């Protein structure tokens, strides 16, 4: 493995029981870069994040983080790896029984012995970085979707992680919140120098901020490149995904196994 690659997948396959999710995937994510993994729903993107965070282990192949195979790590080593990592969940996953301040302070309190006054200052700084200073005393139920996502982002960066994982950070946001979150992700990546992986299906916003893109479909990488290369790509798959077309290599309709006429009980119908 090149020393410049912080994350590397080597021939990784993964299946939930008999259902294959990822099939022989190999990719490398350079240190300090913001990389997007794109693909439709159910294509295996989030599974890749779960493999990197060590929540699941591959059925075959290796996932290397900073040169170390996650499968070879003990429980304690895996937790050590997670301490250097931040993750933004799709809907924030804020602790609903804790205030904004306690949410952001949570990883700091759990992993350091800093005095309360210092933790308070750190929380204010992190909230300020996401533009939410002044919301410390609010409860998660009092926040809008976009604000909750920003609080979750402040919590994810609380310990200045070396690796950031973003799971669908733009889902369900209004255009202003979406733009703010995208700008924050880019700004944090530049300022902290973290390696960041963003799973998303928001093509256009993502191409504006990322350094490299992998397209995943049916558990395989079907295209990859820089945003410029992707925009100029002749791949029909990329074209269909970027322009949201129903016709193309990706089938929109579920394979029903019978025709509509058959399902409606009409005579003289033939199998599709």
């Amino acid at each position: 493995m090149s020393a410049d690659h912080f994350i590397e997948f080597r021939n990784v396959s993964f299946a939930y029981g008999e259902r294959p999710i990822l099939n022989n995937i190999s990719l490398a994510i350079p240190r300090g870069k913001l990389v997007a993994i794109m693909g439709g729903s159910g294509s295996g993107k989030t599974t890749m994040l779960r493999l990197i965070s060590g929540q699941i282990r591959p059925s075959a192949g290796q996932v290397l983080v900073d040169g170390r195979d996650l499968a070879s790590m003990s429980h304690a080593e895996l937790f050590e790896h997670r301490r250097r990592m931040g993750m933004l969940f799709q809907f924030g996953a804020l602790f609903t029984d804790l205030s904004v301040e306690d949410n952001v302070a949570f990883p700091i309190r759990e992993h350091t012995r800093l005095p309360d006054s210092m933790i308070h200052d750190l929380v204010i700084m992190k909230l300020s970085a996401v533009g939410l200073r002044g919301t410390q005393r609010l409860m998660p139920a009092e926040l809008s979707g976009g604000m909750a996502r920003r609080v979750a982002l402040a919590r994810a960066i609380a310990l200045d992680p070396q690796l950031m994982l973003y799971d669908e950070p733009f889902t369900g946001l209004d255009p202003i919140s979406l733009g703010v979150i995208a700008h924050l992700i880019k700004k944090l990546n530049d300022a902290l120098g973290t390696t960041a992986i963003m799973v998303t299906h928001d093509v256009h916003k993502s191409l504006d901020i990322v350094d490299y893109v992998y397209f995943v479909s049916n558990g395989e990488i079907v295209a990859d490149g820089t945003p410029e290369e992707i925009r100029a790509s002749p791949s029909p798959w990329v074209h269909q995904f970027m322009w949201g077309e129903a016709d193309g290599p990706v089938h929109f309709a579920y394979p029903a196994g019978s025709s509509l006429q058959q399902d409606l009980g009409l005579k003289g119908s033939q199998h599709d």
Partner: protein
Amino acid sequence: MTELLLSPLRRLGHTTINAIWRLGFISRFLLAILRYSGQSLLRFNLTIREIYFAGVMSVIIVVVSGLFVGMVLGLQGYNTLSRFGSADALGALVALSLLRELGPVLAALLFSSRAGSAMTAEIGLMKATEQLDAMSVMAVNPIARVVAPRFWAGVISMPILAAMFNVMGIFGGYLIGVVMIGLDSGTFWSQMQNNVDLHYDVINGLIKSLCFGIAVTLIAVFEGYDATPTAAGVSAATTRTVVTSALVILAVDFVLTAFMF
């Protein structure tokens, strides 16, 4: 025809294997809780917080129920005992019924409905909204941080709640027997004092409630942790907590009574 015969057999086999698998899983879950309890109990404020939610918040329902159960015992006990000319023994009847059986069993049933179901729903919703995953990804063990404090809070609260139930029940019996019916107060208390043994009746009753506390809280936290992370899954898990707890309380009560008394 063969399929018709085999289908119920297959279902029976599947149900049996599933039940044994869950029994194994809940045993391993208990071992995991005990393993991480050290970390959890070192930060005892987490357990104190859960004692407040599970124990203190259950005090009202336990105290009020205990009072009414004691009053009913007073009425029914007086009716029956007076037929045999033994109305003086009402104090002993009320106290023994409560200390040995009704106190621990009813307090545990109330606790499982009030606090056990809430624990299952809370942990189940934390799972459904990825809060447990978030904790795990932050290198914080959810069993040590979320499950163990709730488990110990239940185990600690249950005998205290049963004791409160007993006290209020005896007070209810006193209200009916002495204040309302007019039995002699001295006789009421002295009969109780003569017939109740601290070790045999009181301590055994508290041991019972401790066993119920372990069983009910383990079922509650396990069902929450094992819940399917959907609205229907959390709802089903909460129902299972209340139903399974009730059955386990009554079954364990029978076994303990057989050994103790």
